[in-house]
């Protein structure tokens, strides 16, 4: 499993771990990692084990945000490596997501 998601016992926090590639090959896996969860939960996308991402990963994150309610969605992207952080900054994702 390259994408794993787990909810806290009260269902209010969902953590999604992404290992290795985060690109279009993961589309359906990534989508099902959040679709089945409580929409109002706080979502954390943990990229500590992510080795590479591309623009389709950005698209997938935006789709997730839209699905979870757009501006009201609570999504933070955590444990980004310096390179991945730079990609988010260039794409101005830091305005739409909390990135650390």
């Amino acid at each position, binding site marked *: 499993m390259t994408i794993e998601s787990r909810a*806290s016992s009260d269902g209010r926090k969902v953590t999604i771990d992404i290992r290795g590639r985060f690109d279009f*090959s993961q589309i359906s896996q990534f989508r099902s990692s959040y679709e089945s969860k409580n929409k109002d939960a706080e979502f954390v996308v943990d990229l500590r084990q992510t080795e590479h991402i591309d623009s389709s990963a950005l698209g997938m994150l935006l*789709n997730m945000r839209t699905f979870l309610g757009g501006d009201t969605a609570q999504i933070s992207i955590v*444990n980004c490596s310096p*390179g991945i952080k730079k*990609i988010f900054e260039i*794409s101005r994702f830091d305005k739409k997501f909390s990135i650390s």
Partner: protein
Amino acid sequence: MEILIAEDEEFCRQLLVMELEDFGHVCHVAENGAQALEIWRDTKPDLILMDMLMPVMDGYTAARAIKEEQPGEHVPIIFLTALSDEEELVQSLEVGDDFLVKPINFNILRAKIQAHERTLNLNRQVLMQNKELEYFRSRVHSEYDMTRHLMEAAQKANATDVPGIDMHCTAASFFSGDLVLLQDKWDGGAYFLIGDFTGHGLTASIGSIPVTQAFRTMSRRNLSVGEIVRELNQILKRFLPGSMFFCATVGEINQARNRIEIWCGGLPDAFLIEGNEVRRSIKSTHMPLGIMGDDEFEADTEILSLNGDNRLLFYTDGVTECSNADGEMFGEEGVISVVQHSQGRILDAMLQAVYEFNSDLQDDLSLIEITCMEKGIAADDGEEVDNINPLVDIGLPSVSLEFSWWPTQLRTSDPLMIVRQWLSQHMAIRPEKEVVFMVIAELFNNAVDHGVLNLFSDVKSEEGGFEKYYKNRQRLLQDLKDGWVRMELTISSQLPMSLCVEVSDSGQGISPLNLDLEDSDDAFGRGLPMVKAICRELKFNTGDHHVRAVIDLNS
């Protein structure tokens, strides 16, 4: 036994020798005290029969000299005396061990020798056991020294100057069963561990070696708290005897100190504090480490949001279970009271309060305090500035490599894997490899999708179009009969280091319409504009279906 007989009267001496040899003893003889001293030095007999009155040196003086020369070792001396003066007999016992009044009654002499033989044997046994004990003690001591060295070396790498995180660990004995570990992350976040092995002393502390090593390795690999505790549990389950386990809390806090992820197994409640009030207690929800098998083990963690006024306090039961002379315990109430009344660091106030409660510490005692106001410090670019120049000095050669993909290779699940593997070996690429990988992936996919497969992105804007697009792509790739993509990578040997990526394909090649990044919510159309934003140079040549991009490295 070997017996030394010191007697100046020859008849009496002969008689004694005869009698004692009859009993099976070996005899040495001396005619006066001085001679007795010399013979004693040479032969070291087991027992001495010493006449009181002798020429040259009397028995009393000789006996004292012998006792002084051999302190610690018991040499029974029986005085033979014709004296019947009570005071002198008493005086003889100050130096000697017994006396026998002349004329000698040989039955009594034999009995006395037997009695002294028993004492002597007992004495020698004690002496030997003492020697063994002494040897054992020094061996244990040197083993302790060695173990302590190992533990100290194992824990040396503990980070101590992580902003906003203070820790303390006091051992009740030479070795501590408590363990506090801290490891800062390159991004300014930090991992911590606080724990308490069952028991105290050496046996309890020995478990800290594998825990410390594993914690270090895993935190350097940037693993999640859940993965770390699962591994620690497996190690301890294997390592510890059945009766032993490790109560611990393991956590990871981010650089901004507004998010903490923790796993708590068996320690007393930790506290989330705001100002001087306990906002909530963080309860242990798991069994301690080292008990459950991997299939039963629960690694789920708790995530808390924090603000700048928060502090967190973690501690071992050495704090709450510290009891005073009246048998009262410091207790959770004690901890809360200190939190409410402390000024400055809670940690200092807590230690002071515990020592005032009971200065004679019975248990190991550890605390961690996290002050959220103090943010972590990321290992920033300052370091990299120093690294810009050495590349020219060590004379790295320029490198170029060309990759070609035909339909068979294009159909594989990750055609770029080999490119990434090759590039991540290069020291100039490594620091921001994800950025480089993204540029390569965008240019490659652009060539595959729009060049070789002739796909249009329009479909992505439809409902569910994103997935439709990639399904379609997959189908076209499966059916692809011919077509190719070529990529040439060149890393320069001059400053500033750069990577040139040239991609060409067999297809039509489309010139992208808009290369400016827009702040839209569209899930697509971001790839090439991002490449443009990253690269120093980006040039499309639609005529020969060729694109060239130059990325500055070490930027």
